[in-house]
């Protein structure tokens, strides 16, 4: 067991959920997603985002369209499909259950709920 590994696994477990929830708010450009996550203090490498998006797209949770940009070639904007929305719902309920459970356990322990909340 290795602490770094566990922490990064924790973070990565919710990554797809986070991405989907950002996209749910409206069509999103990958760097927008990164920016939003950074703003929420969830650091993610851009290089990991692209394969994730592609995988989600291949699983038909996401779709994209080309949007002309005023500088250079068109950009890809991602949006949720119906299937993706359903998947998001599922994840959401799972997350709620999980976070409630975790909160409860941590609350019992009387540990700092502070760190967990900032991380999310």
């Amino acid at each position: 067991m290795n602490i770094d590994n566990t922490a990064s696994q924790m973070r990565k477990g919710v990554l797809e959920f986070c991405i989907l929830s950002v996209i749910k708010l409206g069509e999103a450009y990958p760097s927008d997603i990164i920016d939003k996550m950074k703003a929420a203090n969830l650091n993610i490498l851009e290089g990991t985002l692209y394969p994730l998006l592609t995988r989600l797209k291949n699983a038909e949770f996401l779709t994209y369209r080309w949007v002309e940009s005023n500088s250079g070639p068109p950009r890809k904007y991602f949006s949720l499909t119906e299937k993706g929305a359903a998947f998001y719902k599922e994840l959401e309920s799972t997350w709620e259950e999980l976070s409630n459970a975790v909160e409860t356990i941590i609350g019992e322990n009387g540990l700092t709920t502070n760190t967990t909340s900032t991380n999310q």
Partner: protein
Amino acid sequence: MKKVININFQGRVVPIEETAYDLLKQYTDSLRNYFAAEEGRDEIINDIESRIGELFQERIKNGATCITDEDVNVIINNMGRPKDFADADETTGNSYTTGTNPDPLFSQSGYVQGKKLYRDANNKILGGVCSGIAAYFNIEPIIVRLVFIFSGIGFFAYILLWAFVPSSDSVQNGVRKRLYRNPDSKIIAGVCSGIASYFNINVWIPRIMFLIPFISIFFRWGHFGPLSFPNFLGFSFSPGTVLIYIILWLVIPEASTTSEKLEMKGEKVDLNSIKNSVKEEMKDVKQRVSVMGKEAKEFGKSFGSEVGQAAKRTRSSFGDIIVFIVKAFGYFIIGCVVLAIVAALFGIAIAAIGLFPLKDYLLTDGWQTVLAWGSLLFFIGVPVIGIITWLIRRLARIKSKSHLMRYSFLALWLLGIFCFISLIYSVGQDFKSGNTIKEENITMVNPGIKKLEVAASGKTRYYGEHGWLHFAPFANFDEDTSYVNNVRIRIVQSSTDSFTVTMVKMCSGRTRKFADTLAAKMNYTVQQVDSLLYIDRGISITPEDKFRNQHVVVTIAVPIGKMININKTLGWNHWEEFNGPWGDHNWDNSWDKDEMGGWENHYGDDLIMKQDGLYTMNGMKADRNWNTDENENRNDDRDRNDGSTPVIKDTTGGYRYDQTQNAIDSLKLLKEKQVQKVRDSLKKAKEQIDKSLEKLEETKPAKVEAFSPISNQYDFVLDI
């Protein structure tokens, strides 16, 4: 000062420093490698590239004249290197990824689609070669390990693969370290400096390693015997390292572009990275051991279970297994053939180099020597180097840039074949004709002695077979003289009552005249001193005379009732008969008939010549060939000689001895038998006639007289 180039990157024209471009290219290549197994590889990489392009544009918009190394590094750090992705893939990736196998390259079955052999850095024991191969073929690593352990060439192959197959780690780190020849600091071809930068050592270390044999050869020159060949493959003999250098030269590509040069040096090694890698290693050791245990367990399980189950586990269908088996079989056969060719060529090469000291005795100067060198280098050396090069290139998947090398190899080899055939023909010509055969009588000092002892003469009394290679008939040779062991001793019965010794010298040559002169020059002596007959054990030949199958036959004729003793000093020698041009002479073919054979078993024993051959002192026949078969043959001979007439003794050579008694006895027997037969038949006939006469007399009064003569006659005919 840096060179700036313009590139078209994802639809944007970007001015970029050349070194920065190399960095960028390396980065995208590493991504491509990393995502090789991924379904949407091109899409992912396109997305990433277009994002990088955007970032570039931003930089330029902000006033940068061009993209620098630093810009690229910053962007790469933001995007993340494949190593960083690996962690992310761990959990978001495929569900069948197990905790023990965190490397996506090897855990995803999709990896096989990439079909590139890597050393598996995650499941390694030594260098990860076996697990890499196992992952490549989608089989259990333990199988490959067992094959490597139990096959003889395993170790050598392992080292080669370790050196030439890139580690899967290198893909993750983004910089793949590869072995290149370094053209920047080269002396011959940059092999040494390339090795030095690969292993991160001082360039002089490999250079000295290659040079040591050259230095030591000066010290070793005095001890450098002609047959110390086994050292050839070691480092103590310079051709070994020269060969290795040439092979490396051919195998290792030259680092010509900047990115290749970066690859050559690989990742920068500093204190931090060493510390990190050591830490990683230590962490892995424990895990690796437990993985090994698990693997072994799993292997046992899977071996017990059915093939189909195993196939499911390794995610390959039944068809894949068949394809794999067929492929493996094909590779096996190809491997065997290649191995056989290499082995054969090595064998020839070893023989050729072993024979090399004999070159002076065999070949004439000028063309033949040139041809010999040509065949050695091109006919043998070129395919050996070629096959080794091909194998290594194949294993390391280095693609040759052109067919030039292949064709030049082929051309050189054809030249080698030409040399070899011409050499064989030319040497064959030198052995074409035999000399004129003439017998030489050796004058005996004392031909009337009771016992003659045959001994090896002093000058060649002792020479051992030294060296590990022995070329019959060459018993011993050095720079000036060679002793050829082609001596044959024959013992026959003498027709007179004194010992006679004759000698025949034979050899081959380009022409009969040449062979005659060479035969005259042959230095071979037979000499009687008191009761001893000294003969040379070998024919001494000088390089000027050349070896042309020189051959001596000494015939010792022993009179009946006298003794001969073949000294033990001759005992261990080979008395070889050579098939040379003289084999065509008829008189040679008929030798064995009446000759004493078998005396070879009686070295040091006194043998006595009797009427019908050699006997030992306790009355046993010394001749092993004298059995019943032999006797029959003799009788056949006798028949050809018109049977009863006694064979005239061969007085000239004394090869024949008296055998008439035997023949006469058998003939007498035959004659008696025949006489007996005739007698018997006559007796019978007489009885028959008597009987019929009696009958006739009995029937005479009753029967008609007129018929009697006819019936009488009739009966008689029947009886006969």
